[in-house]
């Protein structure tokens, strides 16, 4: 039997293997200190150059001017980098950092006619809105490019749990209230806390490593129920819709204007969502999908994101099927987006096989692969993080579940053959 200190990180046994997490106990890095360079890019020497850069000033700044935001958490992989949640815990995990690093962009590509990426984008926006509601003031402003107010009305709300969990929650709430019986119950626990089997504590243990992280950053991410809708719907203070009518120049102008307006409040962060990017239904078939104008638009967008250190993130979704092998998709994957994931629904034959193999274990049936093409920052550093057909996903009412892919094996056939031989 081994003992761990309370603050130590327990190796994850979750579905997706977590990277080793030596920096989990770090405090959030202050906004503005992520870059070691000055604006002109000159690296300052120790004790000279830009005041933000020298190690001494970094320490001072971290004490004095820490940008606090309930949606921020330090990266698991790199120091001095903060992350925001994508609204999907397992996507946060496969991005290695434990979320999407600030000032970074993530592209979700999708093969086929399904709309899983659209759901992921909604979760990303919902996460920002939910944090506003939890905090009781506007700390996130979302920008939905190419969308109208319907998009905001369809955002999923927090998953309240199944009926059992809801009952337990009610009981817990009741216990929290002051009453004679509760005080007695509390005393009882104090006397026999070592020996009493506490079912809640046991349940918490089963959630393993995520629990300690969740307690430290309780509002960093949530599970969403995709069948529910956030009520009341987010208003103009929480979300801006930018139409594509005036072309990309107009979109960039509107985004700049919104970002400048919203980030005057030093407690706010911005989440930019571009759902169904380049989809002919939204973008038409002419100027807005022309290669050079798309690259120019996204490059300008990246410049906006990077001009506010630690305050903006971007997530977009597109159909890889429509643009497979084209200049546009190659550029988006290689040069424009910091992170690129692709959802590839299983071919029909594999679906049939899984249905057959997991007849009695329906929860094991997956819906497709999650291919990782690029991980923010780490891929740029030269780490080889391209992982194809290593992960599979399953979208359910409350969770977008990702786990390591393993080929289903038809064990029944083998048994039948053996029986027939005898």
């Amino acid at each position, binding site marked *: 039997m081994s003992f761990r200190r309370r603050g130590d990180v327990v190796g994850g046994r979750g579905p997706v293997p977590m990277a080793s997490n030596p920096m989990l106990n770090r405090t959030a890095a202050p906004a503005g200190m992520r870059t070691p360079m000055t*604006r002109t*890019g000159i*690296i300052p020497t120790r004790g000279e150059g830009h005041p933000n850069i020298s190690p001494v000033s970094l320490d001072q700044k971290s004490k004095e001017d820490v940008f606090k935001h309930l949606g921020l958490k330090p990266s698991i992989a790199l120091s001095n*980098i903060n992350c925001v949640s994508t609204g999907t815990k397992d996507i946060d995990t496969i991005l290695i950092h434990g979320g999407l690093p600030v000032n970074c962009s993530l592209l979700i590509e999708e093969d086929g006619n399904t709309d899983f990426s659209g759901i992921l984008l909604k979760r990303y926006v919902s996460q920002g809105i939910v944090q506003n509601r939890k905090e009781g003031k506007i700390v996130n402003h979302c920008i939905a490019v190419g969308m109208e107010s319907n998009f905001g009305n369809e955002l999923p709300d927090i998953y309240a749990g199944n009926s059992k969990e809801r009952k337990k929650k009610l009981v817990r709430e009741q216990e929290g209230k002051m009453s004679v019986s509760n005080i007695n119950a509390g005393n009882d626990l104090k006397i026999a806390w070592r020996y009493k089997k506490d079912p809640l504590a046991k349940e918490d243990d089963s959630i393993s490593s995520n629990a300690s992280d969740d307690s430290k950053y309780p509002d960093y991410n949530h599970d969403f129920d995709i069948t529910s809708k956030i009520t009341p719907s987010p208003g103009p203070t929480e979300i801006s819709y930018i139409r594509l009518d005036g072309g990309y120049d107009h979109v960039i102008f509107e985004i700049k204007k919104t970002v400048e307006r919203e980030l005057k409040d030093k407690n706010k962060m911005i989440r930019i969502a571009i759902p169904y990017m380049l989809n002919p239904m939204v973008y038409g078939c002419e100027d807005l999908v022309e290669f050079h104008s798309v*690259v120019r638009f996204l490059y300008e967008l990246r*410049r906006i994101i990077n001009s506010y250190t630690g305050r903006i993130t971007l997530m977009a979704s597109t159909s890889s099927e429509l643009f497979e*092998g084209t200049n546009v998709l190659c*550029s988006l994957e290689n040069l424009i987006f910091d992170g690129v994931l692709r959802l590839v629904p299983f071919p029909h034959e594999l679906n049939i096989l899984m249905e057959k193999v997991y007849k009695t274990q329906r929860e094991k049936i997956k819906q497709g692969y999650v291919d990782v093409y690029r991980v923010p920052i780490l891929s740029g*550093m030269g780490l*080889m993080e391209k992982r194809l057909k290593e992960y599979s996903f399953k979208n359910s009412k409350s969770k977008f579940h990702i786990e390591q892919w393993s080929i289903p094996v038809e064990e029944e056939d083998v048994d039948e053959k053996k029986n027939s031989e005898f």
Partner: protein
Amino acid sequence: MASASDLQEQELSFYQGNIHSLIAPENSISLILHEPANYPSWLISGIIQQSISSNNECYLSQQSPAYPKTPSSTFFYSFSETEQTYSKYFLKYITQNKSLFQFISPLTDSTISIESWNKSIITKVKETKTKDLTPVVILESPELLLSIIPGLTIPKLLTQIMEIQKYATLYIALSTDLINSSELVISLLHRSSIILSLTSLTTGRADDISGVLSISKGPIHNEDINKKLVSFKIADRQFVYFVSANGYVDQWFASVSMPMKLIIIGLTTVYESLEIKSLCGLFTNGKKSPEQFDLSMAFIIFRNILEIHAIKAMVGMLI
């Protein structure tokens, strides 16, 4: 079993018997080609470290002897990455003569005018260039400029690059996967004195190896550029390397780099035999300007012929 001589090969060096193992000769072009999953930031950081070092320090060749050298001003222009990507390497390895190094990215510096990118580089380079010392300029993903700057064509971009080359030792990092810039890659391939290519393992992703670095000789001979520097003999070889998130890089000598070498020799042979050397832009002395002909059209016409001849040449050499 590894011997002491094998251990010597662990040191990354582009040139045989040259103490400045990663620094190319003056006014040459070194091309860094990489696959989308194998970014060369670790390699670029090593080049910068050695370039600005006054004692030949480089974290990729730690066992090479400390040798006094004049540090060069180094300018790194990245069009696709921000300081965030390089921060780990810069904090760790760029510790000497920091004032000689500048990182410039239009993504983070809104004051930079992208349209006149090369003029700002030339101005800076001219300021630091002396008789004895040529600054080092590193360009990352210049192919993006073809989309960002309206009306910029490949010949125009090449002219701008060649203009910088006149005043600096130039390194250019390009992605090989971009369809629209394949002509740019080919054009630069034939102007380069050294070609460094970073590729994934053919067997796929591995936990302990990030990729393969191949060092190959380019079609431009260094002695053509500067008669003083005939000693820059390129060490054709391959290394496998591993990059970790904490900024440490290990590289191991793998083999002599054959495939790339053969392709380059093959293509050069064909170019010479077809007497289209000048047409295809092997004009580093500045006698011809790329605007005198449409390079892209020339390549479209000749590419197919060249590929066939190159394959024939390769097959011939192998036999």
